[in-house]
Structures are given as C-alpha cells and as structure tokens.
C-alpha cells in the first residue's frame, strides 16, 4: 500500500472514532433523556439538563482539539505536515 493510501486509512479511522464520540453526545444520550434526567449529575444539575446546557457543548470543544492534535500526528508520521508555524 502506498504511503498516501496508508495516511488516508488512518485519517479515515480517526474520522470514524471522532464521529462515534460525536454521535454519542449529540444523539445517543438523548434517546434516554427522560430516564437520565431523574439522576443528579455534575454540580447538582439533573444529568440530561446538564448535558444540554454544558456537557455536550463542552465535550464537542474538547473533541475538536483532540481530533486536530491526532490528525497532526498522523500527518507528521507520513511526512505530510505543512512547514512553518501557525
């Protein structure tokens, strides 16, 4: 397999992991919204309420930075990263 094909395979796997986490916190947990809201969560808010106003939102922020770092590592591994800083 060429270097480029390997790079793309790793990139695609990272995408699948990222989208899986995204799916859980944007869609998955809200299938059980009513049940989850019965339980007290962070800072004393009900769990579902907390996810809608802070939890999911914050997780998305962290997820994007994590994704960006992982993708940079993949690019460096195959020598595809850009020169120069940002």
């Amino acid at each position, binding site marked *: 397999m060429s270097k480029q094909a390997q790079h793309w395979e790793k990139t695609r796997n990272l995408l699948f992991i990222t989208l899986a986490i995204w799916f859980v916190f944007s*869609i998955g947990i809200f*299938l059980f919204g009513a049940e989850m809201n019965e339980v007290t969560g962070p800072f004393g*808010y009900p769990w579902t309420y907390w996810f809608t106003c802070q939890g999911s939102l914050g997780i*998305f922020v962290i997820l994007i930075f994590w994704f960006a770092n992982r993708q940079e590592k993949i690019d460096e591994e195959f020598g*595809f*990263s850009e020169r120069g800083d940002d």
Partner: protein
Amino acid sequence: MKGNFIDNLPKVYGIYTGGFLAFIIIMAIGEQMGMTSKAIGICFVAFTVAIYAIIGWLSRTAQADAYYVAGRQVPTVFNGMATAADWMSGASFVAMAGGIYFKGYGYMALLVGWTGGYVLVASLLAPYLRKFGCYTVPDFIGTRYGGNLARLLAVIVLTVASFTYVTAQINATGTIASVALDIPFQYAVYVGLVSILLCSMLGGMRGVTWTQVAQYIVLIIAYLLPVFWISNKMGAGFFPHFMLADEVARIGELEQQFGFVKNSAADLANVPKGLAGITKAHSAVNATPWAFISLALAMMMGTASLPHVMMRYFTTPSVKAARKSVGWSLFFIFLLYSSAPMLATLSKLSLIDPSLPTGIIGKSIAEVQAIDWYQNWNAANLMFVSDFNGNGTLELNEFFMGGKAVVLATPEIAGLPYVISGLVAAGGMAAAMSTADGLILAIANALSHDLYYKIIDPKAETAKRLVVARVLLVVIGFAGATIAAMEIQGILGSVIWAFDFAMSGLFFPLVLGVWWKRANREGAIAGMALGLGSAIWYLVWVRTGGSGFLGLTQLTFGIFGAAVSFVAMVVVSLMTGAPNAATQKMVDEVRVPSGRTILGKQ
C-alpha cells in the same frame, strides 16, 4: 507600533478591549451624574458602530486575495473569535435565552445542534476545503465536479439559504437601532444596513474579519457581564454556570406548586401578539427523543453546510490552522451558549419566586401594574398581565412576556443600572451586524466570483471584479433591508429555515466531494437540484396544511431534503461514469495537508 499588523494583533485588541471597558465605566459615571437613559443608549450604539466603521475603512484593499480570503493570514485564535461573531446572530444573542425560558428542553436541542455541527465542520470539511484553496464554497463544487451547471446550482443553494438568513439579521439590527436611537423601524433598518456595509464594502473579507473580532469582544462582554452580575446580586452564586442547581430545582418546585393552568382561547385573544406565558417545565424532559434529536441533527448538518461559516476557514494560514481554528470558534461560542440557560434560569426565578423581592407571581395585579419596569416593558409591548380568573392576584398563567425580554429586561428587573441595558443593546447590535456582514459577503462573493468571473466573464481584470463584488454587496444589502422592512417572518423561524435549505442542497455534495472519490458531476447536480427542490416542496406542503411524515416539521424539513440529496447523488453517480483521472488525482491531493493548494497550482 513596530512589526506588521498580524504580529501586533494581541496588543491591538488588548488596547481595544481596555478602551471599551473604560467607555463602559465612563457611561456608568455619566449615569450617576444624571445622563438620561436615552443618551446612554445612543452613545453605546453610536460609539461601537463608529469603531467598526473605522476598522472597516482601515482594512480597505484592492487585492483579490485580501478581499476574498483576508490574505489567508488570520491566526487561529482570532479567526475563532471572528467565526464566533459571524456565527452568533442577533437571534442567538437576543432570542436564545428567551427560547430556553419558554420552551425548556425541547428548545435546548438548538444548543446541542448549533455546537455539535462544528465537529462535522472540523472533521469532514474545513481542512480539506482550506487545502483546496478556493475563494468561495461554490468554487469548490465547481472545480471538484467541473462544469458551470454544478457551480451555478451551488450558487443558487447558497443564495437561497443565506438570503433567508440575512433578512432576519438586518431585521434584528433595525429593531435594536430603532429602540436605541428612537427612530421608526422602517428607517432604522437602513441605518443598520449602512453600518453593516461600512464594515465590509472597502475591505471585503479582510474588513469583515477584523470588525468581527471587535464585535465578538463587545458581544461577549455584553452577554456575560449581566449574567454574572445578576447571579451575584440575587445571591445565586458568584459563578452561575456551576452554582445554579438549587435555583433550577426551586423553579421545578414552584412549577409543581403553581401548576400549568391552560388558558381558554377567549382569554388568550386578549394577550398581545408575540407574547407567551410559561407553559412548559424548565428543566424536565418535555419533548420526545425524536423531536429533540431531529432538530439537533438538522441544525448540525446545516452548520456544516452554511457557506458564511465555511468561508471563514479559507482565511487561515494553513490546513493545520484551519482545524485548530474550528476548535477555538466553538470555544468562543460555548462561552455564550453555556450562559444562555443560566440567564433563562435567573430571569425566570427572579420573576416567579414569591420569596424574592422581584417576584411578581402571587402579588396583586394592581401592585404589579404599578411597578416601573413593568410599565416600561408593557409600553414596549414585551410584557403583559391580565386577571383571567378575577381573583385580583397574578397567577403563573396570567403573566406574559416576549422572548426578547429575557435578555433585554432582566438587567432592569434585577435592579442593575441602566448602563448595562445600553451595553446589552450594543452587544445585540454587534451580534446581528457581524452575522449580516458574513452572510452578505458570502452571497456577493459567490455571485461576483463564481457567477460573474468564472461563468460570465473569465477574462475580467481584478479591479473590475472587485468593483462588481462591491456593487453586488450594496445591491444584496438593499434587497435584504427592503424585505426586512416588510417584517414578514419572526427572527428565529427564518434562521432555522436557512439551516434546512443549506443542508438540503450542500451537505452531501460537499462531504462526498472529499470523502467519496467516485462522486461525479451528474451525481452532484442531481444531489443539489433534487435536495433543494424536495426541501422547498416539503416546506410548502407542511405550511399549507400537509401532515408531513416521520415527525419532520417546518423546522426540520432539511432532514428530508438531505436524505433525498444523498440518495439522488449516490444513485446518479453510480449510474454514470467515474470522474476522470485528473479529478481523482485532485481528490487525492486534497486529502494531503502539505504542498500547494489545488487552485494555487492552476
């Protein structure tokens, strides 16, 4: 200052922020010394708009690269702030807390949707479109799939979605300008429009970028300062985001105690149009899973398809920077979005809790009608009480408020000085202006670059292209303002429609363009045309009394449009031939961050 402008950015905006805080303090002193509230409102709006206009003038340019993509040198963090301002519209600023206040959980799907979409932007699209090196979103579609028809369809989808959105933003600038400057709405709309054009006309994307950063700073201060202040004043906690659990629980108790009494249609007929009562639980789950998820999903896919957001990532210096910049954008958006539910909680509790001095439920109607702030906001048509059951006491179901009042009136109800209300007006103006600027520029750039330069006159010189771009900017702005002046739709409704239109026509042609090499021109054309067409058909059908299916409403019809677009694109692509070798090679290169941009090579 030494060095170039980009290196000095932190210093420049640091001084700017300090200056703005000093201005707030001067206004506060002015208020103590007897400045009228009207004068304070005018000063806030006039001062901030003047600053944006100066930035717009300083950013003037005659170069295509600077005009279309700000010279591709906007650092990640600053691009994040600009995107956040571009993203958070007048609706986010003025109406979001109100929506949460009235509809609770069902509405909060928008919070999840409008943030979750950025994960799709970062992972599926932004870095690849940056590598492509295009000036506009249709530029990518036109080059990836080839041919003028695909490019033209992308321009059409972009225009339909963005234009729907921009009328709402100009409407919002008009509303705020008319209140702050005390002039009729019909004229205020054009005052708002002129302010918007001052930012973008001379400098294009460069001007818009640096004004948007300035606007973000104003809007975030204007949103967070009152939330923290109110929370502290009420004794609810000095950091509201982590400390309002008791308040949320208390609202639940009060809801139990008062009950949600349903008003008769005859009683409701007396309530002024646009005002609503509290009829839904604050923190309990009050929507079905599908209602919540379908709305969130529509907003997420719409986020990833809206061209005025995507084009902000064309301005970063590198592909790597584009990815990081999406993270910063969402961080800056998170600061405001996570505060909106807190403001809704504080606002609601301060109004309905009889044990608080500001609580009005349980007081006598006559007493409430004698309160100063009630009289002010009743006169502004944003508050209303009526004794439906004739017992002389205000009940929960007898109190009505406009959605905007949560942001606009809560500081006054909580007893904050008027200077805060002036600040909030400046923040709302900044939010609406920054989004309107991004949208008008997205439309004008697509028309000038893709329609005029690429399709009509490919030999046009740069100077002529930029004249065309500026003329279009003014024409589109005036068209938007004219429609806004007619006041056809509410602000939030048209914003959500824009997301649905965008995702119906653009989501899959963009995503598959990068992630599926086999996608070809015929497929993309079918995907865009049938996607947008079916979305419009479904919307018209539901609006004219159609029942709809799968629980898709006029807020989530984009899911149907996008599904049609996906199926059409895959089926037609597979029925027709694979793209040629040059196109396939181009897709391979897009997937690799290093090297020159695709369009830079041509």
